[in-house]
């Protein structure tokens, strides 16, 4: 006998659209964790992360999102949906007055000048080292934050990140390198203390 938890995402989705609640529950429990953790780091807010997870699965439930299994894994598709929802979250936050974004010589945003107001600094994690890098992550501009989170925390490949973020693979590589460099620079005092 095959357990429902052994079913593929595609099979579970077919059952969901046939009205089987157990399939929906299995699918949700399989994917909610990574999606929530991505949204938590991306938005820096538990409430916003919960909203994003709920909105993403609601879209999956109603068929509004139009997931096509031939175009990639459901998990990566959901990351893309969550990213788009997080962008809306960013837009809502940016309605508040903000200083114009400074750029460096290459026209990219100056990571050192990222304001502490860009990311919520409320403590989310108990572990000091984890909380410190989470805070540093929250201060990265979103388009640097995405590849760092997806690569370092969710172990997606460059190609998969390129699909999620809808950029080419070279951009993923450069943004990841710049994001890491900015994190290292911000954390340098404590990192040097560790070595």
């Amino acid at each position, binding site marked *: 006998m095959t357990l429902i938890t052994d079913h593929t995402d595609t099979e579970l989705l077919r059952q*969901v659209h046939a*009205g089987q*609640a157990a399939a*929906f*529950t299995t699918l*949700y*429990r399989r994917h*909610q*964790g990574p*999606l*929530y*953790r991505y949204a*938590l*780091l991306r938005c820096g807010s*538990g409430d916003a*992360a*919960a909203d994003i*997870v*709920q909105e993403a*699965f*609601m879209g999956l*439930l*109603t068929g509004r999102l139009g997931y096509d299994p031939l175009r990639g894994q459901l998990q990566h598709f959901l990351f893309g949906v969550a990213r788009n929802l997080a962008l809306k979250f960013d837009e809502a936050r940016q309605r508040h007055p903000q200083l114009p974004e400074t750029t460096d010589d290459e026209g990219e945003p100056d990571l050192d000048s990222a304001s502490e107001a860009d990311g919520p600094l409320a403590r989310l*994690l*108990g*572990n000091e*080292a*984890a*909380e*410190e*890098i*989470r805070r540093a992550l929250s201060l990265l501009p979103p388009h640097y934050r995405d590849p760092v989170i997806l*690569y*370092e*925390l969710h*172990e*997606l*490949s*460059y*190609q*998969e990140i390129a699909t999620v973020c809808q950029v080419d693979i070279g951009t993923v*590589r450069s943004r*990841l*390198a710049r994001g*890491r460099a900015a*994190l*290292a620079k911000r*954390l340098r005092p404590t*990192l*040097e203390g*560790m*070595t």
Partner: protein
Amino acid sequence: MMNNDDTIDPIDPALATRFAALRSELAGHDAPRCVEKELLQAFAKQFPKKQLWYRTLSLPQWGAAGALASLGGAGVLATLLLALAPHQAITVGPPLIGIDDGAAFIALESLERIEREPYTRVVEAELPQTALAPLGMPLNPQTAGGTVRAEMLVAEDGHPLALRLSAVN
């Protein structure tokens, strides 16, 4: 899934340690339970369970169904009573037999009693011919083993008031 690119850009080991701490710390973080609850409520709205047929009946339909069941039950009961002990089922005096539009009509109760009854019902029944002899109906030996289709007038409590014999099987 592991990163599987041909060339992986190196990472500062101290930074890698921090990321490992973050991965470990985040491992226990899941979406709040209320999210699953709300999604399941939305699911239930989108895919409402099909109701069992008896839950789809309205109150008047239930009333009609109950009345039909009562009629059927009373018919079976009356048939059994007449078949097994017709002299006990008919409690009052000699039956009044008449011919009504070519069919035999047998009053099992007095006409006053029948007229007094506020709620009466007609029940279809099949009676053995032998059960009719005690009521004063002539018995044909050739059809004695057969049955007679009858309409029985019964009181609200199921008490038989009269019989109308419509056909001999």
